[in-house]
């Protein structure tokens, strides 16, 4: 097992632990915010990035997206925006559901599962954008290709390619459940 997929599994486990500590009603609110972040990036990410490049590039007199570091800039934008959304999702109450988990093992299991889902979304989305922009981490010597077999088999199951057609439906579903429950 290579470092990348190991880190992915570890992050999912860490998020599961966070879920156990915080309780899943808060985790569900974070899930909604994370999905909104994914929706913004997949639907408008390219437009926002091009607009930023035009505005900042005009001020600096160059185009960042046409530079040799275009992949790094793109990855920085997508991952930076997403991590900021995750930070906001976990900072404070945000969209948290009111109430408490059920007592005992079911409550702990639900907490851990919801936390793990959030970990899958967060770590998987970051990995997806790293992969899409050819792992710019290698610029800093933090990653050396190629991917292991396991990592290559995991790539199709990252959240963005799977959930992208259903993101809006997921968000509507969570908000609907919040209103109707």
């Amino acid at each position, binding site marked *: 097992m290579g470092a990348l997929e190991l880190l992915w599994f570890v992050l999912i486990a860490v998020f599961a632990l966070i879920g156990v500590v915080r309780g899943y009603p808060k985790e569900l609110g974070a899930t909604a915010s994370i999905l909104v972040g994914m929706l913004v990036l997949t639907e408008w990410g390219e437009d926002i990035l091009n607009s930023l490049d035009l505005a900042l590039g005009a001020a600096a007199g160059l185009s960042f997206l046409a530079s040799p570091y275009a992949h790094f800039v793109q990855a920085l934008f997508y991952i930076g925006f997403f991590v900021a959304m995750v930070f906001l999702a976990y900072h404070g109450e945000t969209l948290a559901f009111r109430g408490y988990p059920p007592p005992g093992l079911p409550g702990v299991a639900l907490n851990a599962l919801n936390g793990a889902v959030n970990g899958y979304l967060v770590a998987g989305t970051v990995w997806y954008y790293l992969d899409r922009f050819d792992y710019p981490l290698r610029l800093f010597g933090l990653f050396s290709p190629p991917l292991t077999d396991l990592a290559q088999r995991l790539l199709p199951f990252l959240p963005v390619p*799977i959930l992208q057609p259903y993101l*809006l439906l997921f968000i509507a579903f969570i908000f*609907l459940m919040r209103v*109707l429950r």
Partner: protein
Amino acid sequence: MFNYLPFTLIMTLFTMLGYRRGTRSQLMLLGALVGTWLVIASSGRSLLRLIESTSLFLLRAGLGGEHPELRPDYFAPQPGFLADPNTYPLLFVAVAAIGCGVVWHFGTSAAGLSSLRGALVGALNGLWVSYVLFPERVLPWARRVAEESSSAVGPTRVVGDRPEVLIIAAVFGLIFLAVRWIRRPGMGPGLENIPPPEG
């Protein structure tokens, strides 16, 4: 903009309708949709031809009878304009829209478990109407599976061969169960359940 906005709106509308009007009304609507779909599937062309010929007859009768020179050009549809398979979903949607109106107007308010069941059946109705309108957007894998099954090229793929479907279903199910099992703030384990001391 969003390809999935109409789908989300339809799903939300039907789910809300089911939640407010309960299971019985949604099951009646489901029955109406099933009946309509069966009629269209079995005799859609002849049914639409009947509607088309009747509407053409009434249109001509109201706009100068059999004298074409008295009819405006834009009221001269050609026979066959309606009896096109592409218009079948419109008939289905028309029935769904009328059914929604009837259920909303004549249905009674639901509460408790009936609301929950109504929302589920309503979501099912919404999923079906959406699938009739734009199948490739609602369940892209369903169409792919159907196409792959109908062609003799490869073996039929089932859900088990598509883990992404399981992932999506599992996340939906987890959210649904988790929300349903949240205990209200008044039932919590904390000190908020203890009434404040008097005096």
